[in-house]
């Protein structure tokens, strides 16, 4: 069927409109073309024990399917938290790893925690450059950014915390964090048992400053 000038014009106008929308998205900074899964952390396993090197290969093969390796290599968790996370990942659809592989992954993550990540942690009591409070320091140290985003930066496994200071109050946030410390909550990895009351208070103080602006 011969296409009329009108139908050709409409088709080209739609194409041009979509290209402009793409450009507008880019210009407004809303477009993150898949950089979120780029692996920036490089691990040199040359000095690792042989069994940890094997465990690393399992980690690379399995954890790279759904998200980049940075998602696991950036946050710093306790052994209990990593156990929680790996069990959760194993219980996802299409996770494709069995108990033996889960153990290998956990073994590597705990080894990485005690080697590479412990070297990068700030000294106790020190306030790392760029942080604004002890609460923010604690937030970073617990790796909350792996699942929570603030101001567009962070993960998406949990609620966005950008405006949490507007939609929640001190009592609710304190109760939530207390549940994490006591292991009552199943929604998030537990906090270390030795988390102090001061740390809980300062974390709540920090979260209440997040007003979405």
């Amino acid at each position, binding site marked *: 069927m011969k296409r009329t000038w009108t139908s*050709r014009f*409409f*088709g*080209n106008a*739609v*194409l041009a409109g*979509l*290209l402009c*929308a*793409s450009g507008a*998205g880019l210009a407004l900074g*809303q*477009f*993150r*073309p*898949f950089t*979120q*899964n*780029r*692996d920036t952390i490089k691990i040199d396993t040359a000095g690792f024990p042989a069994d940890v090197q094997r465990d690393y290969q399992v980690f690379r*093969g399995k954890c*790279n*399917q*759904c*998200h*980049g390796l940075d998602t696991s290599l950036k946050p710093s968790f306790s052994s209990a938290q990593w156990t929680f996370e790996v*069990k*959760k*990942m*194993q*219980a*996802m*659809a*299409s996770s*494709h790893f069995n108990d033996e592989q889960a153990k290998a992954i956990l073994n590597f993550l705990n080894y990485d925690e005690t080697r590479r990540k412990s070297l990068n942690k700030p000294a106790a009591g020190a306030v790392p450059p760029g942080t604004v409070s002890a609460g923010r320091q604690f937030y970073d140290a617990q790796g909350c950014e792996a699942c929570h*985003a603030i101001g*567009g930066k962070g*993960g*998406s*496994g*949990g*609620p*966005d915390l*950008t405006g949490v200071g507007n939609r929640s109050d001190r009592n609710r946030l304190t109760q939530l964090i207390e549940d994490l410390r006591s292991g009552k909550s*199943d929604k998030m990895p537990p906090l270390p048992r030795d988390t102090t009351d001061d740390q809980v208070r300062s974390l709540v103080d920090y979260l209440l400053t997040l007003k979405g602006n």
Partner: protein
Amino acid sequence: MKKEKISWIPVVVSLLFVAICSMFVVPRKSEALPQFARRYNLKCTACHTIVPVLNEQGELFQRLGYHLPPALQPGEVPRKLSAIPEGADWSLTNNASFAVADFGYAAERTTQEGQSPMSTSAFQVNSWNAYFAGWIPDTSFFYHAELDIVSGGATNVDLSNACIGYTWGTARNSWYVVGGREHLQVAQGTRAAEVYSLLPNGPLLFENPSPTNFVFDHSPVGINVGYTWISSDYRRVFAASAKVTNGVNEDGSEILGPSTRNSKAFWADVDFWYAPESGITFVDYYGRKDQIQNAGIDSQFTYSPYIRRQGVFANYMLKYKVDFLGGYMHSNDDWQAVQSGPLSRYVSNDFYAAIDYYIKQGFAVSGRYDQIRGKITGDTGVGLQSTHDWTVGVNKTLTPSGNVVGRIAYSYLSGRDPVGAVKSTDKLFQADIAFNF
């Protein structure tokens, strides 16, 4: 009595031949929704084995109204779907993809009894689509729209999918209802029942037009309801879906607006995932369409055949490396060769068998054998005829996220149509690269 030679055979045969060739010259468009990867901060391979083929998580993602299937651990109280995290905040680029495109080269040689062989080759933009889909924040509604801009090298704007849905329940027991235009069978079945394949074209039994001008893979307008039950750790999944839709026009195109074809088509699907990434699907379709016989000649007439399809499909994935897939579909359509003549049937038993071997994540080789075995019953039939198709191909993702895929495939089709028993062959080489952005 001397049997009269039926004069409409060459017309029908030619139309069938062109339809088969068109299907193979135009590779399938890629159907990945990159915005989901952006919204949930995941790679394409979280929901696809290799785009566009869905893994179990991808199938369930669609069934749960675009809620990411959460971890389901034994003894854990399943969350309501509305409580599952939404991913990143809603933004245009988290809910729309403007450049899902496929560029390729195809070289083809076709032969048909009584005609000179024909060879074609071309570089072309096979497809360029835009997708708008996602979960509406703070609600249980979701939407999906697909705007096809380029198809088969030609700019031909078409809103081929446009639907709104609502989902409720928990992650383990959920329901959905969807209204609008959507594929008859996409992400509503286990992997062997998918119309998408690692090869450029889906199985022949989904894509082959019958003599009644019906193609199983079409996008009707209607209402779709479904239920999904999931065991802990996703060890077992049971799903059931049903649709009531408009049917199709005489030429096989979907009825999109008011039509004198008042009868509706019914489709039902039952799925059972019995092992990780492995499942079995039963499908039943019943509809009625108008059919023009002897088009363009004096004996042209219109009748209304019933269209019936029943199918069973199954796959087993061995060690997440080798996927064995197979499917069988039985067709039973009314057929009338001469106006006021006796009603006969087009009956066909079609099947396919395929193997996808994943050498490593994002790299697979595939092979598939398709067979269509059909006949027109009664005096006007030419007996049982078969069409065979052998296809091999290689897929490789070209980016860590899996959103760019390169593919090479070769197919050889040979057979006789069930109406005129005219033999034809088709050899097709395709190389294409799909961008999902």
